[in-house]
């Protein structure tokens, strides 16, 4: 994955949160995930990538952040757990799907898989560098993790 490819996902993340709230989100400097290092918060939405690129993309966040996102979208004070879980998959799906604008229609994305807790079963090919994009939105931190060829 090139620097230009990484920028596509940074831009997609910025765009998602800009649509959500006027203030948008801040991206910290992306870093390479170390082998064996787990980058996971409370809830993780995972998208498998196939076609012209292969690998995975996942968005991981605290349940507090996801609750705030749901509250912002729906205007409800007490979102249910199903909605909080669902939005993790939807954010991952939206950022991955938007990347097709740059990569083209052969950048195939799976339906989201949502995992609560550390995603132990996510397999990223060893030869693929895995980039972590830290995201700050309001007082919350989350990560977009991109491991594609």
């Amino acid at each position: 994955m090139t620097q230009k490819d990484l920028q596509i996902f940074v831009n997609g993340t910025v765009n998602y949160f800009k649509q959500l709230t006027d203030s948008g989100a801040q991206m910290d400097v992306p870093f390479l995930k170390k082998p064996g290092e787990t980058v996971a918060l409370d809830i993780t939405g995972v998208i498998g990538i196939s076609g012209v690129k292969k690998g995975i993309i996942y968005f991981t966040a605290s349940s507090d952040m996801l609750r705030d996102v749901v509250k912002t979208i729906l205007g409800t004070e007490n979102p249910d757990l199903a909605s909080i879980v669902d939005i993790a998959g939807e954010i991952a799906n939206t950022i991955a799907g938007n990347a097709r604008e740059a990569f083209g229609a052969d950048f195939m994305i799976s339906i989201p898989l949502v995992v609560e807790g550390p995603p132990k079963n996510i397999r990223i090919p060893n030869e693929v560098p895995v980039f972590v994009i830290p995201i700050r939105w309001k007082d919350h931190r989350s990560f977009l993790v991109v491991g594609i060829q």
Partner: protein
Amino acid sequence: MKLLIVDDSNIIRKAIQKYLAEFGLEIVGEAGDGRTALTLFRETSPDVVTMDITMPEMDGLETLSEMRKISDSPKIIIVTALKDKATALDALQKGASGFLAKPFTEAQLKEEIGRAIGRAS
């Protein structure tokens, strides 16, 4: 006018309901996959459908094609994260009445549906 909402995300279905609450559309059904959407399409004869693409069971483009075999009349608006031009063109060729990329705002949704049904948003 009757509205059918099709998306595998319950948040998106709820958001569409909320954004269109005052838009004069009666929600006659919701589906989280293409097969359920087809059943509801036959049962409820909607005038407007919002249709996601990436869904389990049957994706939105195939569901769109199947719906068009049943009827040309309803306005079917694709609402998807797949933002590339080829997908938009494919959807229009399969009979979509409009195309809206996620993430979307309330104003963008109303504008796209308003355009499809010939009403100012």
